[in-house]
């Protein structure tokens, strides 16, 4: 605590006033970004509407490629969604203090990324109007339940559980902060925030149960974080497709998800930090910690990529090895090399403290990691499908207009949600940042730094 306290130029008395004031008056760039995001979202919605009207045939699916950009986007967004709960839950359990400044935006990112992710399984279905109901275990007139043995059903369960839990976790964290906002505003807004904060009063008993509940939630969410992407990886690993049917998939996917999530948190935090003038709260040290986590997961992913090749070769399975050979040098090897460079090679620069402290360079690396992670999924899905077992079925694939537009639309959806969120909710957890800031003590330990805001 004593070491950390030297970092801070602010006291807890500055937290509410400065952070909330900033939220009320964002940088003009915020509105530009919002307009751009909403436009993209609307375009995406338009294309989805056409897609629902005319059918899946509009996409450029070319059998044997029955999944391509749709599921790539799904896995990508689920992966992005991992960082939030990871930072909230696991790092909470590990008592990593730097998480307290980034966890709110990471959790929000999780929620919105999972929403984006949920969109894709829904629209990728041939008959979503049936699928949205039949894939959920509900009583029905058919007396027929879902296939509890299907990885896709696991996926429904995993993602919906993850979404619910993350939402609870996120909202639970928000409750005291909403109460803080409630206590700053008047009139109708006060009513709204009051309802949203459940009438939080901040008594010590509430804090006591809150703290316990938060901890248990974190304890529940920790295996969940690890399981969700494992389950997503089983969407692939439970088939017999070469390149998919491997036991390495769950840890490999989880590591990849955290990698992309951390990179995305970094990418989101920087503009927000700038637009809402949070430099004094989200300290460079916190950002650096995020980059360390990125670096760690990047090396895990690197290891997994390498091991996949080794196992494919070592197993002696001709189908498996043929696939990996093609991944590296075949017609779709471009995606593979994008993935390798973006996820494994470029993040190596983060070993250097200078790079980690160089915010623009780190930002670019994180963008590249996200690009790389998108192409990782694309590569996994496409290369396994496009040329698998029976040569007569081999095909080609290239994304078409619908793929591109709906992907952009999902980014629009995500960005819109995120920007709306940062405008109306505290982007930094007020109560939690207060915890890691110098405590308001009357003794000498608090120094003379604090004053009333």
């Amino acid at each position: 605590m004593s070491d950390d306290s030297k970092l801070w130029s602010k006291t807890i008395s500055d937290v509410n006033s400065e952070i909330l004031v900033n939220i009320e008056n964002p940088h003009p760039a915020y509105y530009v970004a919002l307009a751009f995001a909403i436009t993209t979202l609307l375009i995406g919605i338009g294309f989805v509407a056409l897609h629902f009207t005319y059918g899946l045939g509009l996409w450029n699916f070319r059998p044997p490629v029955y999944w391509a950009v749709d599921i790539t986007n799904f896995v990508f967004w689920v992966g992005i969604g991992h960082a939030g709960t990871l930072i909230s839950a696991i790092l909470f359990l590990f008592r990593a203090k730097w998480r307290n400044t980034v966890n709110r935006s990471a959790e929000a990112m999780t929620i919105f990324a999972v929403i984006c992710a949920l969109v894709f399984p829904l629209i990728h279905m041939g008959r979503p109007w049936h699928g949205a109901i039949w894939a959920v275990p509900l009583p029905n007139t058919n007396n027929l339940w879902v296939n509890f043995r299907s990885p896709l059903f696991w996926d429904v369960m995993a993602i919906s559980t993850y979404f619910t839990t993350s939402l609870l976790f996120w909202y639970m964290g928000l409750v005291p902060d909403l109460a803080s906002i409630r206590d700053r505003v008047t009139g109708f807004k006060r009513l709204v925030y009051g309802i949203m904060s459940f009438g939080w009063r901040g008594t010590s008993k509430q804090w006591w149960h809150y703290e316990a509940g938060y901890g248990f939630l974190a304890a529940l969410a920790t295996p969940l974080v690890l399981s969700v992407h494992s389950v997503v990886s089983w969407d692939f690993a439970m088939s017999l497709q070469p390149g998919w049917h491997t036991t390495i998939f769950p840890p490999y996917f989880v590591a990849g998800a955290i990698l992309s999530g951390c990179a995305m948190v970094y990418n989101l935090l920087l503009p927000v930090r700038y637009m809402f003038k949070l430099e004094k709260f989200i300290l460079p040290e916190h950002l650096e910690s995020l980059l360390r986590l990125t670096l760690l997961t990047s090396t895990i992913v690197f290891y997994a990529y390498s091991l996949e090749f080794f196992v494919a070769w070592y197993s002696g399975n001709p189908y498996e090895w043929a696939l990996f050979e093609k991944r590296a040098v075949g017609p779709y090897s471009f995606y593979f090399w994008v993935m390798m460079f973006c996820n494994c090679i470029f993040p190596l620069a983060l070993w250097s403290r200078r790079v980690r402290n160089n915010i623009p360079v780190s930002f670019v690396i994180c963008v590249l990691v996200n690009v790389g992670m998108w192409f990782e999924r694309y590569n996994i899905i496409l290369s396994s499908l496009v040329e698998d077992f029976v040569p007569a079925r081999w095909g080609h694939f290239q994304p078409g207009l619908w793929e591109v537009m709906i992907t952009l639309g999902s980014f629009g959806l995500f960005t819109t949600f995120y920007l709306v969120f940062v405008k109306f909710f505290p982007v930094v957890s007020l109560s939690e940042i207060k915890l890691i800031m110098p405590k308001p003590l009357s003794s000498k330990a608090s120094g003379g730094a604090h004053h009333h805001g």
Partner: protein
Amino acid sequence: MSTTREPNQNSETPFAPVPGSDDPRRGQEVFAPVGGPFEAPAKNVVSGPYYKGVEERLPELAQRPADPSSAEAKSGFNVDRRDLLKLFSASAVAGTAACVQRPVEKAIPFVNQPVDTWPGEPTHYATTCGDCSAGCGVMVKTREGRPTKLEGLPDHPVNAGSLCAVGQASLQALFHPERQQRPTIRFGSRVEASEWNDVFENFAGKLTSDKIGILTNGATGHRHGFFKEFLEKVGSNANRLYTFDSNSLAEATAEAHRLAYGLSAIPRADLSKAKVIVGVGADFLDVGTSLLYNTKGYTEAHAFRGPDKAKHVQFESFYTLTGARSDQRFPIPPGSETLVTLLLVNALLKNPSVKGSAGARSQAQAVLSANSGLLNGAYESVGFTEANFDKLAEEMLTAQAVLLAGGSAFDENATTLQLAAILANELIGSYETVLFLQKDWLPAPVATGDLQRFLTDAKDLDVLLLIDVDPVFTLPPSWGVTELLQKIPTVAVLCDFPNESAPFAKYVLNTHHWLESWGDEQSVAGLWSVRQPSVRPTTDSRQAEEILMWVAAAAKKPLGYENYRAYLKKKWEDIRTVVGRTEVPAESYFDLVLQHGFDGRNSTQAVPDLSSNLSSSFRYVDTGRGGLRLVAPLDFRLRDGRHAWKPVLQEIPDALTTVTWDTWVALNPVTVAKLGLRKFDLVKVEGPAGSFEASVYPLPGLHPDAVVVPRGNGHTKQNGTIQGGNGINPLVAFGRAQDALTGAPVTYGQAVKITATGKFFELAQTQKHNDIANRKDIIQEIPLATAVANMGKTQDLDDVPNLYPAMPKQQHRWGMTIDLGKCTGCNACSVACSIENNVPQVGRGQVLLGRQMHWMQIDRYFSGPVEAPEVTFQPMLCQHCAQAPCEGVCPVFATSHDPEGINQMTYNRCIGTRYCANACPYKIRRFNWWTHRWNTVGARPQDRNPRALNPDVTVRTRGVMEKCTFCYQRVRDARHREKLNGIPVGQPGNVIKTACQQTCPADAITFGDLLDTTSPASQQRKDMRAYLALNGEHALKEYGLKTMPSVSYLAKVSLTAKPEHGHGGGHGEQQGGHGEQHGSQGEQKGGHEGQHGARRVKKAKKNG
């Protein structure tokens, strides 16, 4: 086997050695003559299960169209509408769901229900196919008056239950949305739809002249006789009936036999009797005469039964299905077929054991000496040595051999080639042992020289009727037919679908399709098959014969028949006498025939000795050598273009190129490289008379000089959205040249120039990768020695260790076995499947995206060097895996397992996640990306007419997965019969045949109960040749994916493959002489260019 030859050093186009040509086993294999009669005598009339004419049985249907919304016309078409309702209800959730009522449906019963006809149960009619002159018997399955499926008549001697792709597709002619609905009359440039009575009146006014002619297609029944009668009645004469068929093989063969024996007939080739089959440009399994009959005999002889498997050697310049099936295939320069045959005749003559009469030998000698100039340098030009021919001749004389010549493209020497073939067959003694001219020969469907006669006479004609023939499209434009037609004052086109000649006609009269018509065929001499309507006409059309009848009546020159049926009935009274059915009363004979479909007796004719003047008839036109030569064969799906309007035929892939909906320029990859082209480059092909543009398709195994452009496509856009605008007609490039002896148009061998246009046009292929990519457990091929050694041994492919407990035993386990050694790639199964199971056609654009919907797709793999590859066809369908990877991944149980072994696909449960398709290692699941219509090619996609669909199979809508169901509707019917009639499934009277199996002319497909040890399917699964695709090597206990398919394949038995290194049982020694256990990889040297660089994977079955 003896046709080995040295690599030719002199030829301009060097050949790589033929696969396995260095195999010392060659020439040592001796085929013992084996019995096994495959006689197909015309059968006695028995009271069959088939009904006679539809009008008699179902008077209601004859009077009013079946209402599609009738209770019994349960078509599945409403699924669409309901889904929409469900969509609404889904969005409105529970609150409004209570208000959703189903659409009101009506139930319309019969007024008078015919006896023994039950709504919901099928009625069968026997009839005769009218799509070519082979005259196959057809059994039409109808439901509520609508034909739902065509099947071969099981006991018909010609096709014995099978049908070809074209025959299967005939059903699409009914309810085709683009058929002409009413007759039209042209007034100047104005075309008016008219009423039939006005047409008859108007047309009758033109019959004042006596110069009336009819050009019609080939037929063997009473049709031509009727036309002659008409011509005579209206004042013209019978000579003005001209017959023309684009497939002039029959004409050439008949003419050659006329010149040789004075008999204008075609010998019936009973290939089951042959032990060595030599094809010289022959296409007897494909578009040749009576392909189903040939395929059956061929399969009998050529499929593996034991060491006496027949050998098939094929010489051809381009790829035919026949060549693809052969054991040894030698590419020869285009147009050198006659040379090859003569060289073979020469070799045969030299052989001391030559057979044939002295007259035949002397005629052969005379022909050879008369054409000695021709034979100079012939060896070099065809690319083989004299020793090669000697070896082959030796082989042909050792075992019963037959030589078949002539395919689907015809040059100046097409008839001469047949004469040479007659000589060769005389010398190997195949007449009356394999080729039957004396007994049950095939009558010629067209009269020789009619085309030339027509061209001469037509200038003077006042009235010309074109009946079921399209000279504008099927003759090269250089023949000037359009100018000719323009000169004739009155042209009437009578056709079931608008054709290219129609714009030149005053009257375009829509005729019945053959399924709506009366008629008959004499497919084999003495075998008469009757054609009867099985459906009320679906458009306002008239039968061609009856149009003539009524026109004549309107012209006050009545023919004196009530209708064509009455004419036929009268004619069949004669047949009754000929056949000798005197015990049947004359009045009921025709009805009895209609029930059975055919009648006849064995016929014999006296065959005179070979003409002593043959050498003078032998007229060889030298068309030069070398350079690129245009080959325009008949397409095996579209023939000369007359079937191009049926989407199912457009969409089944060409067996070798796998291209659909398009015309391609197939070139040897070596030629493609030499010309600096790439796959799908649009090239301009300039022939003597014109040029066209099409995309290049590099096809291994073509002679490097061959430029192969199939006929069939290239119709103008006015001809409907399905055929209009697809591909090109290669005939535009052909200069006017004719067969030296018959005058048939030349579609083969004219020199062309190919230039790149710089453009690129992708062809819609269904298979993009051509080789097996070194994968060993997909296609297996075993040497004859191994197969023989394994005979009698059995294996249990299902004996695989499993962590899970065995499934409880059920009564049945449905399974299928497919013999890769029998499959000819004819695609009849694919079409039959599409028709039976309402599989939609998706159109060219969607095929380009790989979205074809065939449940049964024939995969084609090339192996071996690019110059002389080997082709293996693998019919691929849902394997119905016992441990199916697709089932576990479906979240909603839309696909799950029937305990009886069927991998069931519940369309209405499917939500379209498509994971099952991804998880399927065989990738045979098909997804409905759209709600498919008739076609999506044209600007006006047509809704699928519910009446054209099989009501037993649910129609799938957008967003659901589908796949082969093992024709579960048929399994279901059999189960019901078992329960209700007490006949156990699999016993006679209750045998399940899937649509693909039922139609397969080669009997490559066997379906049955795997738990019933006596069923053929389970017997074949136990065969040592059986293997499960992608399930490793069972004998080695390498279990591969362990999907445990219910479909097993029987490995192709190869005469050229070598046994693989390291056999467990060492049976090679037992067989002696089959020695050579090395060469484990069987990798041939030779082309590895591009993706055609097929590496050859030969796989030997282990002995353990």
